[in-house]
């Protein structure tokens, strides 16, 4: 029995790896034929960051359905950071030419860039403090992720010319997560999501 569980956990992890790498594989196969490859890279890395983060923040609540999968949150969160890093590197290489003054000007000129940078910083801090030892010490700090998600949703929505179905979907998921979080915090002092 124990062995069976171990084996299945292993394969679930494998599925997660594949799931998280799927956007990369898809992007690489489509890149050369895309009319605007850089925009495509931005979109794919950004969307992957966002939806992996949504998943990471949503699965702790799956215990409602008897699914205790919250331990995979960290894995998904780190992958979300990985895509955010690619997203930022694209900006640094192709947009800013690594010019610090350019970035500073953009960050304070264009709120959506500021918001994006905000989410990146939150993800960076969380990834750096995601080891067992550091997590225990900085557990409270990890609540920042909800602020990060709000910033990320603004960043995503404001980058579009006009809000469409997927942007409304993103805002919907943001509200869902914030509601669940607020509900669980108020109903349980020993919050089951941290």
């Amino acid at each position, binding site marked *: 029995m124990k062995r069976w569980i171990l084996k299945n956990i292993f394969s679930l992890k494998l599925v997660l790896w594949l799931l998280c790498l799927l956007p990369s594989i898809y992007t690489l196969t489509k890149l050369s034929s895309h009319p605007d490859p*850089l925009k495509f890279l931005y979109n794919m890395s950004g969307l992957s960051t966002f939806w992996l983060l949504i998943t990471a923040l949503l699965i702790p609540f799956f215990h409602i359905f008897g699914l205790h999968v919250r331990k995979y949150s960290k894995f998904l969160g780190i992958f979300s950071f990985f895509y955010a890093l690619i997203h930022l590197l694209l900006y640094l290489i*192709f947009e800013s030419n690594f010019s610090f003054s350019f970035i500073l000007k953009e960050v304070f000129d264009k709120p959506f860039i500021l918001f994006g940078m905000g989410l990146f910083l939150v993800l960076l801090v969380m990834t750096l403090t995601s080891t067992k030892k550091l997590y225990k010490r900085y557990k409270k700090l990890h609540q920042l992720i909800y602020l990060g998600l709000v910033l990320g949703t603004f960043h995503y929505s404001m980058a579009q010319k006009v809000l469409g179905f997927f942007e409304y979907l993103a805002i919907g998921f943001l509200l869902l997560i914030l509601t669940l979080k607020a509900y669980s915090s108020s109903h349980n002092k020993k919050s089951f999501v941290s």
Partner: protein
Amino acid sequence: MKKQLDITSQHLFKARRKFLALGAASLVSNKEVMQLLASAKLNLKDLHFIQDKNLNKLQITDFQKASTYNNFYEFSTSKSKPATMAHALQTKPWELKVSGLVKNPQTFHISTLLDTMTLQERVYRFRCVEGWSMVVPWIGFELRELLAKVQPLSSAKYLRFTTLYDPKQFPNQAKNAFATIPYPYEEGLRLDEAMHNLTLLSVGMYGKVLPNQNGAPIRLIVPWKYGFKSIKSIVSIELTKDEPVTTWQKLAPNEYGFYANVNPNIDHPRWSQARERRLGSFFKQDTLMFNGYEKEVGFLYEKMDLEKYF
């Protein structure tokens, strides 16, 4: 015996060369073959026109890219989808009504226009407000030639253009409250902008009639303005006394003005307009004032505050 084995015989050597050449050719030409296939599949009619010598030596964007990366919200807000949906648009017969403050209002059949107007090719830069750009060899006639036929009255100061409204053909127009933008799509020009010889009514591109996703059967091309001004699939041009309110103005008046001239010095409130990406390129290039047509159109805006009239 051993020596002989080391030497490759002449015909094998040549065969190998030919094989390698074929391999290399297939790598290089794959893109061109794909493009030929793409345009052949669309089955677009050839046009007769006066060729543009492309004196500025602009590097023309591939047909494949220009015909599969389209903002055509009536079909979808995705840029790749219009190319897969637009075949359903019925462009024949098609009528273009020119009305309002004109001496001689008329309704033109697109087939008559194709037969009677002298078509010219114009290789223009095309700059989208979203930050990408391309170079397209459009085919059409100057808008002023059409206006000459209807004779604008002296009271006419502006033009209002309208795209076809037909929710049966344009799925997004049927979505009512969930439609991303208000329909029908409307655009406008000042009369002197419309009379400028760069302003084109386009019926084709790349030697053939327009693919539906590029705004068939007739669209506007104003090369010094952001792409959204170049309204697609036009059914009506109305000459008016007052400045018409455009679709994007209705949606976000602080972000999209009536003029929408390409201007690298005035940013969109949310993103920079200083540079642009040519389709297919990873790197950006500087955006030119009035999209590189400052010499030709600068006088139209000489005494205007471009910060205010953006």
